[in-house]
């Protein structure tokens, strides 16, 4: 009988210790989570470093337009069962393209656009030849402006939005394959990603 009580007592203390340890782990995880949820897409608006980096690509390569964009739900976190909207945050452009930042705000995206986004990631860009794209809002936008080629690069994400950058041209056969163009674009994408991550950590 005494053995049973001893064992029960030992078991009880052990269980209490495990519960305590578990609670500490859960508290730690919840803390990390609350730090992450403090980030919003608004933190990344109005930063001139992004603009300068885009301008450098536009001035130094065949890219005629660079758009840093975000896709979000209507203010909350993008979730299944909600609509997604795309907006331009920063742009750089040169002749013959014009400014589209004011036009492209909160555009309801369609399936082709979502597919395009789903194909990009930290190690993958999406290279789009407009004539081969499926019909959709993205193709219509490109065609309206005479864009022939565009490539989209992943930048990062916050709690409530997904960020990416596109570089486009109206020139036939220009896919930014010239070594200088490629290096400039890769440097710019890396720099913007780094700025983005730094801002997340500084927040």
């Amino acid at each position, binding site marked *: 009988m005494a053995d049973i009580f001893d064992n029960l007592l030992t078991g009880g203390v052990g269980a209490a210790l495990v519960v305590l340890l578990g609670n500490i782990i859960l508290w730690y995880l919840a803390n990390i989570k609350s730090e992450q949820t403090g980030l919003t897409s608004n933190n990344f608006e109005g930063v001139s470093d992004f603009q300068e980096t885009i301008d450098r690509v536009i001035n130094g390569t065949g890219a005629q337009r660079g758009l840093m964009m975000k896709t979000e739900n209507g203010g909350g976190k993008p979730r299944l*069962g909600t609509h997604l909207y795309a907006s331009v945050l920063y742009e750089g452009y040169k002749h013959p393209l014009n400014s589209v930042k004011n036009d492209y705000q909160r555009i309801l995206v369609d399936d082709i656009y979502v597919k395009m986004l*789903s194909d990009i990631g930290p190690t993958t860009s999406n290279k789009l030849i407009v004539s081969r794209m499926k019909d959709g809002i993205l193709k219509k936008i490109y065609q309206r402006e005479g864009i022939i080629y565009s490539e989209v690069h992943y930048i990062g994400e916050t709690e409530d939005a997904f960020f990416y950058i596109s570089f486009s041209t109206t020139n036939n056969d220009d896919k930014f394959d010239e070594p200088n163009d490629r290096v400039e674009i890769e440097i710019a994408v890396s720099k913007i990603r780094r700025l983005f991550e730094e801002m997340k950590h500084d927040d």
Partner: protein
Amino acid sequence: MMTSSLLLILIFGLVITNLLLCYIRTSRSGNTPILNCVKDIALIYDLINNIVDKTSVDKVSVWKLPHNVDLPYMDVVYETSGDGTEKLVVKRGEILLDDTIIDKLKGLTIGEETEIITDKLYYSEKGDKLKLDKIKWSKMRKIAESDTALYFTGLHFFEYDKRMTKGDKIRTTKTIKKIISVFEKHREDL
């Protein structure tokens, strides 16, 4: 002695299982990266477009019926493209359901389906009630439920007497099961 040892093992087992479950819940809830969400939305588009490509179904959409709204409106969240119909998604929040249809939809369990005559549905535009374009009848299946809304897939037909073959039924059921599993994966975020 043996009883107490078993009791000990049981207590530890229960505690560890609970902790593991708590950990899994905590790490999953609200922490799904947006890129994964976008990939799953793209997957749903693929699945619904696949139904239209490979069966006699004319159009597929995913509906969201919010719980806490006074008016019986529903929201089309995803729909097939290139099916020759006007886009229902842009009419979001404006498609009016009559009571019979609402009762039918609310009475479904997940995976269960019902047929509705869709030509009774309207969307409103500048105060006018306009009939939904082309769609005559639909097979609605409940796919998910959250605290805020019910979700359904709609298989839509442009002719009253158009029916699915047995093969189509098997294919669509299989595809919708995949859609249900995608929604189930995001259940806590719906």
